């Protein structure tokens, strides 16, 4: 818990003028729209990469809605994260076709290479490994997403080659 707090403090968008301005801008642009909470949270998640409890309170305040409502929305949807992610993300598609096509073996192999389980980030903060819902690329199953790129027909022995480019950037 203390480790998490330390990271959040170090990486607090509300104390960083550039990112705070971005948050304010997103709120101002969308606050009058019907159903603004989802739109604002989606844009902040994609611009900043995470929404900490402090940020949730701040957004609630700016939108003039109860903090519980913003927290309720953030905790309901899997795309919203409350911690900073790694520089890169590797997502494993857990759709039926990918599962049947061997996603579990790919996750096992990745664990061996990176030493982290899905939902975790490598200690150097470089790569976050996640499981995601069907990305709809079933004809190329099993599929993984390296940042925004879809990589299809992946086999466990291809994993080192796929991960290498994003591992190297950190060094």
């Amino acid at each position, binding site marked *: 818990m203390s480790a998490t707090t330390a990271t959040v403090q170090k990486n607090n968008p509300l104390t960083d003028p550039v990112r705070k301005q971005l948050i304010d801008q997103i709120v101002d642009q969308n606050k009058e729209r019907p159903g603004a909470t*989802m739109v604002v949270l989606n844009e902040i998640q994609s611009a900043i990469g995470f929404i900490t409890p402090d940020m949730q309170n701040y957004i609630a305040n700016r939108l003039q809605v109860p903090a519980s409502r913003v927290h309720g929305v953030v905790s*309901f949807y899997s795309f919203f994260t409350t911690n900073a992610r790694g520089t890169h993300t590797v997502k494993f598609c857990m*759709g*039926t076709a990918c599962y049947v096509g061997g996603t579990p073996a790919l996750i096992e192999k990745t664990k061996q290479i990176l030493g982290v389980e899905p939902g975790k980030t490598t200690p150097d903060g470089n790569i976050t490994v996640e499981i995601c819902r069907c990305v709809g690329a079933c*004809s190329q199953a099993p599929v993984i997403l390296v940042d925004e790129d879809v990589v299809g027909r992946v086999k466990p022995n291809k994993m080192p080659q796929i991960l290498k480019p994003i591992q190297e950037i950190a060094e």
Partner: protein
Amino acid sequence: MTYFRSHVLVCVDPACLKKGAHEITDALQDEFVAQGLIDEIQVLETSRIGGCDNGPEIMVYPEGVHYVGFTPDDVPYLVEEHFLKGRVATKFVQQEKTFVDEELSDPTSKEVRVVLKNCGKIDPENIEDYLAEGGYEGLGKVLTSYTPEETIDIVLRSGLGGRGGAGFPTGKKWQFCRATQDWPKYMICNADEGDPGAFMNRRVLEGDPHAVIEGMIIGAYSTGSNQGYIYCRAEYPLAIKTLNIAIDQARALGLLGKDILGSGFDFDLEVRMGAGAFVCGEETALMASIEGNRGEPRPRPPFPAVKGLFGKPSNVNNVETYANVPQIIINGPEWYAAFGTEKSKGTKTFALAGDVQHTGLIEVPFGLTLREIIFDVGGGIKDGKAFKAIQTGGPMGGCLPADYLDLPVDYQELAKAGSIMGSGGLVVMDEDTCMVDIARFFMDFVQDESCGKCRNS
């Protein structure tokens, strides 16, 4: 009017402009003047010809030769070869694309493409491509010749049922919404294709977004709605981008916004993005999400047609349902109703995935058997293995074993067999698949995605 023996089209899309498209136009003009050909050949600037990856690009008609990747210095050579010597300057000819569409191949003899008609054929980011294929003709016809009631009647007679899975008659749904005396009314498109193994809607949104938009405008006119929302799942960023481009282009041509095509009818559209929640594919949860809340379903009645989005009458249809509408208007309800079975009319798109030879999208009339779909359209099981089961209707559907291979696929027959049509994902499993493990996988999925309302009741 002057007649030219040849026309040279120069692509002036942003990507080609960066690579000097205007300089190419100038160089071509100069060279045709120098060679005394300027009265015979016309140079025109046009929008996208190819992929612009290899620009600048030109197209020479009537021959239809596509040249790419040359500079103004190459123009004299090109003109000499092609227009003076009359032979193709092979070194600049665009190579045949080796790109293979893994999701959508040419239709097999048992397929009928209505919804997928334009997918992979037109440029989804260029509204003119859609217009050239008869796009927005259906809307024009509706706005100029039919009353809302007549339009609903056409949709009713076509037998079109909700393609999100339940098959409820679309015309009936529109009637209910029209009958409610409360405004504003909302037209909503459910593009939250959450069933794992289903990707038909994604492909339609990415490949033919205007068909969905046109269907929605026709629906809005019929029900008396002036504002629409397309709720698309966050996992489909390209679909969201393509939709937004399409909406802007439609608005620019007066097909969305105030006084559409001078008819006095107003309608506008907005795309709303989900954030990763399977349950938001359920219509009341979806509306809660658009309202900015947790995507939790609420009991019906009241039905959305009475009290929906923001407490106002709303009509929710699936992507595929809307995409069928323009075709039904243009070709007539009888044409559409001729496809399919007695109770399930028309065609259905399916996403074939798993251990089948040809994975990808298909569109077939209702009533084909599972065997025909898997073996004739899908080419049979991979690696010569034996068929074990096919999953229909997503995680809450069912897995049908070999005994059911001769089952005709329509809403009623699938329900009788204990499965459901669902949105159209078909995952084929071969003899190596462990059904116990699959059952566990589905239970994990539904447990994880449950909103909690059913668990403790």
